């Protein structure tokens, strides 16, 4: 009898512990996944920002002051193009191993924010965008790469000296770069989102509220870059 009780007790306690273990594992896996995704997202934003800063700080290098107004070629919220000498001497040369020539011909860098992907949540569509970076270095080097995925289309704002947005290109003294990234769960786990937004059964108001809440948890990073060559 005592053996039977032992077995039953053991099964009961073992089962109980097993349930705890599975729940804990599930929670831990989810948290790990989230932390890991957060870290990756953070790292990606940081890398993207670093690349953009690296380029934008060169804006207008080698362009004579009297041609300052030509430095910014395109200044739109999702499209930025500017001139700079990127290979005028060995010290002031862009850090791209494929650029091997030195000359005194003006070069250009172009950033475009283009649509990358969209996720349909029936009553909400989430669109992600890719930042494309094009570098043109004389005599014939052209590199075109995507430097990352963001959640906002309007990545660039053009400001005057005290941070007021300006509409005329030759009044720009500062470029503000805003990069946002959705919570990775928003982009990667539609099931999770569905389960969240339908937690109380189908309820349009709840879905909207819940989606807004989830989207608010997105990450963002903003950098204001002042090109000293624009401020001369």
């Amino acid at each position, binding site marked *: 009898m005592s053996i039977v009780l032992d077995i039953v007790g053991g099964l009961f306690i073992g089962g109980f512990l097993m349930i705890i273990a599975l729940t*804990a594992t599930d929670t831990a896996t989810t948290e790990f996944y989230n*932390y890991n995704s957060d870290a990756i997202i953070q790292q990606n934003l940081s890398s993207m920002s670093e690349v953009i800063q690296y380029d934008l*700080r060169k804006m207008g290098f080698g362009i004579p002051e009297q041609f300052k107004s030509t430095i910014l070629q395109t200044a739109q919220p999702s499209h930025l193009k500017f001139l700079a000498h990127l290979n005028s001497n060995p010290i002031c040369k862009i850090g791209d191993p494929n650029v091997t020539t030195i000359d005194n011909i003006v070069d250009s860098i172009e950033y475009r924010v283009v649509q990358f992907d969209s996720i349909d949540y029936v009553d909400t569509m989430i669109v992600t965008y890719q930042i494309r970076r094009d570098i043109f270095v004389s005599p014939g080097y052209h590199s075109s790469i995507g430097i990352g995925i963001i959640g906002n289309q309007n990545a660039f704002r053009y400001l005057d000296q005290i941070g007021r947005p300006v509409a005329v290109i030759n009044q720009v003294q500062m470029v503000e770069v805003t990069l946002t990234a959705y919570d990775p769960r928003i982009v990667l786990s539609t099931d999770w989102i569905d389960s969240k937004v339908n937690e109380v059964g189908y309820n349009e108001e709840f879905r909207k509220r819940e989606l807004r809440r989830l989207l608010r948890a997105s990450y963002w990073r903003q950098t204001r870059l002042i090109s000293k060559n624009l401020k001369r």
Partner: protein
Amino acid sequence: MLGKGAILVVFGFILAFSMYQVRMSSNVMATADNFNTEFVETMIHETALSAMNFAINKVWQTENTSDSYLFRANSCSSQVDVFIVGADTTQIRVRTWGYLFDTEMQEFRKEERDMSAFLAYNMPVSKYFWFSDDEKGVFWITGDTVWGPVHTNKTIKTDGNPVFYGKVTAKLGFSPDPTSKKNEADYFGGWEAGVEIEIPTDMSSLTNAAIAGNGGAPKNTKSIYDKVVTFDFQSDGSVIRTVSGSPPDTVLVTDIAPTGAIISSKDIRVKGTFNGNTTIYTTGNIWIDDDLVYADNPKNNPNSDDLLGLVAKDYIYITDNAANNTDVHIQAAIMSIERSFTAQNYNSRPIAGIIDLTGSVCQYHRGPVGTFSFGGGIHSGFLKRYRFDPRFSTLSPTNFPYLKSLRLVSWWE
């Protein structure tokens, strides 16, 4: 049996959770690493900027164009090298490095940043559309639209909505402050306070050019004058010259100013249509007796090669005469070293229309050209219509004086 099983289960849990803990910790560490990397890179950048500021300040103070030293701040090191790369261009190169602990490799990694600034000293005064040591409290007001750079060693005062398209610099700042809500002026080219630039007083280069051009000829016959002289320029490149006490004669500008410089110790009177490239300098006054324009109007031809500089130690006057009382058109780079560019009898002469000036104006004190009252219009003298000659961004009249002021030509980082 139950006890053993329980112990095994507990150990199993400990093992499993320990593994998760390690993995979780690695994520937390990765986040911290991201932060640390950002921090170190920001520190390196800030240190490079500090080193660059220090180096620029040192070059500005010592005018030393060859230097090399180590700069340490924020636990980062910077190697600063200063060297000449052109006739008037100095390069400052800053190489900054710091160390970042790489958790994957378990070692310190060297992070470097390179920064270069190219600086120049000399700049023709004519590059400024408007330069004054003292604005004498005159306001820039609604309706004033200014192209080209503006500088004063006092305060820029604005009332209403003047528009500046070039950069505006002022030693004593701006009133109202461009960042205040009271400010309505538009500084589209940017602005900067605390900038002091002295009006050049050393005319030796201009004088030497005139002496060289004169080539030993008697005074008042070629490039050097010590009598009042009138130049009535002709569009064919000649000039009807009237030296006080002598009859007029017609000569080519290139003959009397082969090096592009004419100097005098007495007043000079000018008018006409100028064809050539010359700077006229006197230690007295210059009088503009009538329209003084280029043969090839730069408003119509941006590639016009006619360039005239008028430099007076004293005043540059718009003469109070009949010819100037119905508008006056002036195309030149104008500079009054110790006085002003002004209208003779500005407060008693009749209402004389507008001064249509294309060029640049540099003066010690901002000179009046008329009187007016707010809302009451003009009472005497001229209204102003001043335009920067865009060619002066890249060109200047031959021998026109230079400002000596350290300025940024280009910045690399």
